[in-house]
């Protein structure tokens, strides 16, 4: 639900780092200005190495930007944001339940209470009955469901998703996209979703932010006016193809640069 308030506001975010091999200073993100509205689903789309994951990590606080400012709206319930990581992001030594409860435990919730609060999220992501399983007993898609549940459990304002479906096979990936929209519709979160798949970005998002090859900057901010809720069939509609085509043309100008990635 978009309330018109701003959930995230980034101004002049710049990221440089020193390349270990050449000792040269590389610019990962040139400068990024971005506003994300409350309840909006925004995708960051770009070629690999464009700094989209880096931006997410800066928002999350895992990395410190070289310059710029990021403001996040808080809901007063704890963390402002929670990250859904790429593949293999569960602790193999924890059961599904303890993995999902982990964010709450980090926030200081007692383990027993954290488990109790994690349970409904496990149901929500469709893992009911798997709470006591260990990650190795789950398929890749199920692991990413648990990964998502862990982020949802802390009930943050913003969900940061870092190519969460990148390592899934095509069918599971589609299924998970539809599932994500269903869950998003229930959980009503602001989502920033990083991907390099055009079709995934168009299908999921209210807005697609197209980024350039490194150094990353915003090439275009495209509003996707496809009706919600969106079934997977929407991918076969001509409007969908038009959006995908428009973005593809933008990205085609960003042929893979030569150099260290």
């Amino acid at each position, binding site marked *: 639900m978009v309330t018109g308030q701003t959930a995230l506001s980034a101004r002049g975010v710049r990221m440089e780092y020193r390349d270990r091999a050449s000792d040269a200073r590389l610019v990962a993100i040139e400068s990024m200005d971005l506003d994300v509205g409350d309840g909006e689903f925004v995708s960051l789309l770009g070629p690999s190495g464009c700094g989209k994951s880096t931006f997410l990590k800066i928002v999350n*606080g*895992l990395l410190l930007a070289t310059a710029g400012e990021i403001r996040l709206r808080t809901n007063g319930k704890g963390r402002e944001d929670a990250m859904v990581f790429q593949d293999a*992001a569960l602790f193999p*030594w924890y059961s599904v339940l303890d993995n999902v409860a982990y*964010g709450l*435990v*980090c*926030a200081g919730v007692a383990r027993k209470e954290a488990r109790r609060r994690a349970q409904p999220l496990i149901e929500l992501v469709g893992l009911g009955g798997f709470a006591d399983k*260990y990650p190795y007993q789950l398929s890749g898609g199920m692991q990413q469901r648990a990964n998502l549940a862990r982020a949802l459990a802390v009930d943050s304002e913003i969900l940061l998703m870092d190519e969460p479906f990148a390592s899934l096979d095509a069918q599971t990936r589609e299924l998970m996209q539809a599932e994500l929209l269903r869950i998003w519709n229930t959980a009503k979160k602001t989502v920033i979703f990083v991907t390099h798949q055009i079709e995934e970005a168009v299908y999921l998002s209210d807005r697609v932010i197209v980024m350039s090859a490194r150094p990353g900057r915003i090439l275009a901010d495209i509003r996707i006016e496809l009706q919600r809720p969106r079934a997977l069939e929407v991918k076969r509609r001509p409007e969908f193809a038009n959006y995908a085509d428009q973005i593809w043309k933008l990205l085609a100008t960003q042929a893979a640069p030569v150099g260290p990635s």
Partner: protein
Amino acid sequence: MARLRTANERLFYGVLGFVLITVIWEVAANLGLFRRSLLSSPLLIWNAAVTDFGSGTIWPHLTTSLTEYGLGFGAALAVGVPLGLAIGTFRRLNDFLSVLLFGIYSTPKAAVAPLIILVLGIGLESKVVLVFLLAFFSIIVSTMAGVQAAAERHHDIARSFGASRWLEFRSVVLPSTVPFLLTGIRIASGRALVGVVVAEELAANQGIGFYMDFFGTFLDTSRVMLGVVLLGTFGIALGEFVRRVEKRFEVWRPDIR
């Protein structure tokens, strides 16, 4: 089902191998293929065991060795694990101590046994210290390696959700270290046993190593062999114990080995 069968097969063939060798040994001894006074025979060893366990004369030796082993190994664990975790965690401490540790780790500790006995005497203390030295470095080095092998992405998860340093340590570092630590314990348990026997054979008035050395000088090879059998049995029991602990801790990654 398949797993169950292999476990049973392992036991079956293990026992079969043991029985076969024992029978061949006994038969060869009876056929006079070698001198019994040099290599003894299973029956003679059995007789020695019955005599010494029956009279109880072997018990003080066993308890002495077990005490030395237990104290030395326990101390190595008690000091090695926390220190290994600390060195693995704090970079400065690592810089400060790791070269020294790896240096001592790679020196043969048994070589300094005479020195330790000279300083600490032929009693319990020298044995405990030698066992400690032999076990300690395997434990600390493997613990350090375990801490440093914790995956960066797991650290990221902890930090991303704002885990305290203590929680990050408990939820990421400790579980990642367990497999390494158990390997270290397995190696250390064998080395520690060597420590007990070497020290006792060098200078002692009690213990299994002393028992073997003492009867060896009287050419009582059956009793020397009995000592070997007892050490072997202890080694097998210990190995099995560590294996079970490993299984218990690694339910979450059964396909790793």
